């Protein structure tokens, strides 16, 4: 793809710039109408839409294509609001309302003396949640995220993050497992909280097999290996959008990844199975905001 045209691709920088423009210029009463433009992307982005529909077929057994088409629209609608809220926070520092569920685990996470790992999914707003966490606690957070594919988009995002950086929040990109592993281990041992998305494997990252909604899939091995090496718990934590400018921070019972036998893989597999069960439960209740735009299992794509 030619460079000038690449900026208009799905992952192109033009859309990020447009989002910033919209956030800076849209009166509140035009917002719902502007969000209607997500219908354009919904209709144009065929492969992405089909990916969501395939996932929905697995999440909601017995569902038909026509209903899942409408459900997929709801996923796009939620995604549009979520990225707008994240952009609004980044550029204008406008916070939404928050509801905390599993507060006892959240407080435990904030109060524990050593480091910890937050394992989350592509649900609601990962960025918003991490920035809220960094602003409301005195804990330092290291947020791991997949790098942008498009170089111009990557440059734009990194520049925006530099400009609107939140104190106590560091963002690392997981390009290669070996690049980050030692840094993250040092961070956790230093008492930092490391946040990782554990529902999608980036190419080049080590993974472990798992089952989600009865289908074979893979989860990143990194968070579990890191928890075992650093001897810290994993807190499953989800940011769920519950309405206009309203989010729920759901913190679940921590998963302990302990070495109990000579078989390291078995111990890791137990933790991955616990994560899989937790993730499945949360997605089942909040399928409309699981932003997995590719089929989560090769069985679904076949």
């Amino acid at each position: 793809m030619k460079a000038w045209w690449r900026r208009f691709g799905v992952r192109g920088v033009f859309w990020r710039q447009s989002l910033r423009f919209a956030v800076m210029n849209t009166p509140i009463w035009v917002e719902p109408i502007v969000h209607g433009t997500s219908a354009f992307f919904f209709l144009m982005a065929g492969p992405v839409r089909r990916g969501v529909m395939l996932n929905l077929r697995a999440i909601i057994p017995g569902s038909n294509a026509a209903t899942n088409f409408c459900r997929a629209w709801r996923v796009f609608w939620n995604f549009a609001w979520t990225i707008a809220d994240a952009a609004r926070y980044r550029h204008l520092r406008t916070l939404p309302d928050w509801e905390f569920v599993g507060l006892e685990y959240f407080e435990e996470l904030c109060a524990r003396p050593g480091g910890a790992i937050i394992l989350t999914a592509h649900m609601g707003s990962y960025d918003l949640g991490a920035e809220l966490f960094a602003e409301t606690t005195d804990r330092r957070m290291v947020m791991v995220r997949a790098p942008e594919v498009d170089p111009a988009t990557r440059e734009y995002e990194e520049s925006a993050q530099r400009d609107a950086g939140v104190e106590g929040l560091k963002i690392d990109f997981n390009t290669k497992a070996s690049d980050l592993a030692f840094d993250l281990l040092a961070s956790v041992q230093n008492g930092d909280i490391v946040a990782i998305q554990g529902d999608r494997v980036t190419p080049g990252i080590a993974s472990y097999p798992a089952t989600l909604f009865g289908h074979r899939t893979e989860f990143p091995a990194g968070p579990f290996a890191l928890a075992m090496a650093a001897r810290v718990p994993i807190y499953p934590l989800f940011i769920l959008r519950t309405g206009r400018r309203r989010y729920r921070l759901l913190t679940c019972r921590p998963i302990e990844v302990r070495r109990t036998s000579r078989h390291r893989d078995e111990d890791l597999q137990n933790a991955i199975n616990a994560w899989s069960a937790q993730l499945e439960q949360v997605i089942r209740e909040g399928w409309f905001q699981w932003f997995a735009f590719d089929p989560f299992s090769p069985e679904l794509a076949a």
Partner: protein
Amino acid sequence: MRIARPQAAVAWVPSRHRYALFRLIAYLRLASGADGPHGDRGWRPDVDLGANAIVLAIDRDQSSVEAYTVCVLVWMTVSAFFAAVLSSTLVLPAAIALAIPIAALTLTLSMVMTGLVVTPVLHAVGLPRGADNIAPATMVMLIAVTLAASYFATLSTWVRIPAWLFLGAVAFNGVAAIVLFVVRQRVRAAEARCVA
């Protein structure tokens, strides 16, 4: 970051609303305690705090009811204007069906044009720059709709009804702004009781 104390009826903090009419309604609810211990949209902070805590942000654009009410009012008003224009060549039901998406498209494009052209010109002639352009964009777009409503209100066809409704809402908002100005000390005191 300003955070409202969850035990108060913070959903009705006037600062969580943008337009005077909604700010006044919020103040009246807050002052009368009509909302009781219940929070916004089903939240019951006094009951749920043990298991769930809430953090309500103090931001002028936080009220969903306000955002959607004004959205529907403006969208339907502009749709009525387009329907009136189109009805000279189409039958009324077809004109209305066509006018609704045209109005949505027009409002979206107006936002883009206001952001790209109008507000830079306003800044160039001396309008102070803020963190964003939302206030000038709102002002420009609402003035445009008000001017259009003033024109359509003078016609003798059905379109004068939505035009007058819109103008009436603008007038009510103006009156509410005056009332709020008069009771501004009391509003501040009421807010101070429930905003951290």
